[in-house]
């Protein structure tokens, strides 16, 4: 039980509790907006809804932005606590202490991307003068609520189930080629095809972001293509990290762990890779999330402008990810591919 009294764990649980509470408090309001919003009416109820939507969207922006930061803290904490468990060498060991570790991480990552998309929709809505997306964004919030609650519950189960006397498994067993997991399959990808996939998908995402930006953010097809390329780029980059980037960082031909690169022994290099990758993917997905609303009269100028801004973030983030990975490979003394 003592394990739970870590500052980072307390902060994470507080952030999740705050998020769930804020959602619980917002849910009746969201339902009322969906059922009774009528911008043409000057009734007392409508005016109250208009006043409160400003308050609720500010509150939700705060708690969802907190969830974006929570992913980083969750991973940092998992890595930091690895010294407390027998058999744990990095965050993988900590996440393997019980059955809720990896589901909690995956849920947090899902919340990260979905929250980023909701925040983008909320942002464009709050820039318009006539609340064009107010119903949609609160309906999406209600759809998001079960996932946020599930994420908070999984995280709580994980932290409550952290037992210091449990012997856990290290990353070697999870990311070795013989292991029956998706991560192991990605780790087993030969370096050369993995490199093509890694640089190809990042290049495609950067090119699509540039194309979308060049069209001043007005092209619908480029927006959806960028969102798809961002999702693909994210998956391919993670596969690339598992398959070859990590090997170059560790200078070891069989060490595929995507978490050890977060350790101080490796200069926290992983954060340099993951922060721009997550930021760029979120921005790319957000471009797709706001595109369906580009034709709404009051958003005709707002969506393309913000979309272009997001595309620039995506392009720069993916380019930075590729550049950092290349620098890691460049500096490594490992020879993985013979010329």
């Amino acid at each position, binding site marked *: 039980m003592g394990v739970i009294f870590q500052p980072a764990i307390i902060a994470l649980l507080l952030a999740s509790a705050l998020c769930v509470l804020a959602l619980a408090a917002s849910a009746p309001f969201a339902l009322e907006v969906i059922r009774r919003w009528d911008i043409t009416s000057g009734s*007392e109820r409508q*005016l109250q809804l208009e*006043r409160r939507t400003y308050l609720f969207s500010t509150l939700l922006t705060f708690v969802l932005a907190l969830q974006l930061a929570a992913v980083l803290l969750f991973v940092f904490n998992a890595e930091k606590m690895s010294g407390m468990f027998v058999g744990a060498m990095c965050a993988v060991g900590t996440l393997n202490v019980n059955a809720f570790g990896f589901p909690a991480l995956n849920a947090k990552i899902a919340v990260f991307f979905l929250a980023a998309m909701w925040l983008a929709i909320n942002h464009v809505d709050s820039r318009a003068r006539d609340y064009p997306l107010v119903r949609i964004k609160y309906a999406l919030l209600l759809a998001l609520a079960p996932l946020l609650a599930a994420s908070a519950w999984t995280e709580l189960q994980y932290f409550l189930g952290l037992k210091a006397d449990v012997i856990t498994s290290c990353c070697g067993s999870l990311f070795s080629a013989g292991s029956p997991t998706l991560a192991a399959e990605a780790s087993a990808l030969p370096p050369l095809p993995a490199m093509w996939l890694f640089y190809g998908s990042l290049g495609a995402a950067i090119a699509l972001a540039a194309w979308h930006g060049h069209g001043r953010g007005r092209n619908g097809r480029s927006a959806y293509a960028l969102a798809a390329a961002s999702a693909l780029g994210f998956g391919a980059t993670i596969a690339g990290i598992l398959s070859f980037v990590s090997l170059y960082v560790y200078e070891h031909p069989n060490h595929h762990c995507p978490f050890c690169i977060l350790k101080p022994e490796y200069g926290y290099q992983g954060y340099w890779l993951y922060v721009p990758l997550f930021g760029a993917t979120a921005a790319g997905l957000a471009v797709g999330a706001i595109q369906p609303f580009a034709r709404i009269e009051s958003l005709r100028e707002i969506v393309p402008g913000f979309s272009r801004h997001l595309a620039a973030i995506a392009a720069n983030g993916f380019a930075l990810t590729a550049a950092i990975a290349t620098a890691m490979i460049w500096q490594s003394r490992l020879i993985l591919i013979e010329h």
Partner: protein
Amino acid sequence: MIELHAIRKAFNQGRHNEYWALDGIDLSIEANKVTALRGPSGSGKTTLLTIVGCLARPTEGRVRLQGEDISGLPERFLTEIRRKRFGFIFQQFNLIKGLSALDNIILPAYPTGRPRRQVLDRAEELLAGLKLGHRRHAKVEWLSGGEQQRVAICRALINDPELLIADEPTANLDTHLAGEFMGILESLADQGRTILLTSHDPLVVESDVVQRVIDMRDGRLIHER
């Protein structure tokens, strides 16, 4: 220019001391005219003025400025509208003590991002127009009531608003200064500005400068001249 539809405004709503200051106001304020709201204390004149000027929101009803509904706009848009489209002259002038007359006048222009030289030139022009140029560097607490009011008028005009709102503009002035104010009001009306003011001063509401007088009582419009 401004249309009010079924406006109601409550204070302390839901509490034992709930009070409805406005109760079903339908009103259209025409552009380029001077309109006065007249009525006894507590009739809702100032409340109505604050709703028209986006300083308060109605509890019910809609306010439209040149066709656009402004009563439901989020605060960020209201700030923009208040800054660019309305000029306010308050009963107590609400000047900032410790600052000079010139600094008080140019203050509302800062958030607009206009070049400082342009703003200063406009302020000098306004000061000269109201014969206050020689007092530009005097701190406002050193000025007389009439001078303070002229500074407040200059401040209200610094962003060149379409609509000027004045709450009991002569309440703190003697007859001579009130007469001077009416002269200023006449020149502003001649410039084609839309002016909405509250007053129960006969000097104001019976003046020829005021083209429309609306009587209020108990939060309702009761008569119009």
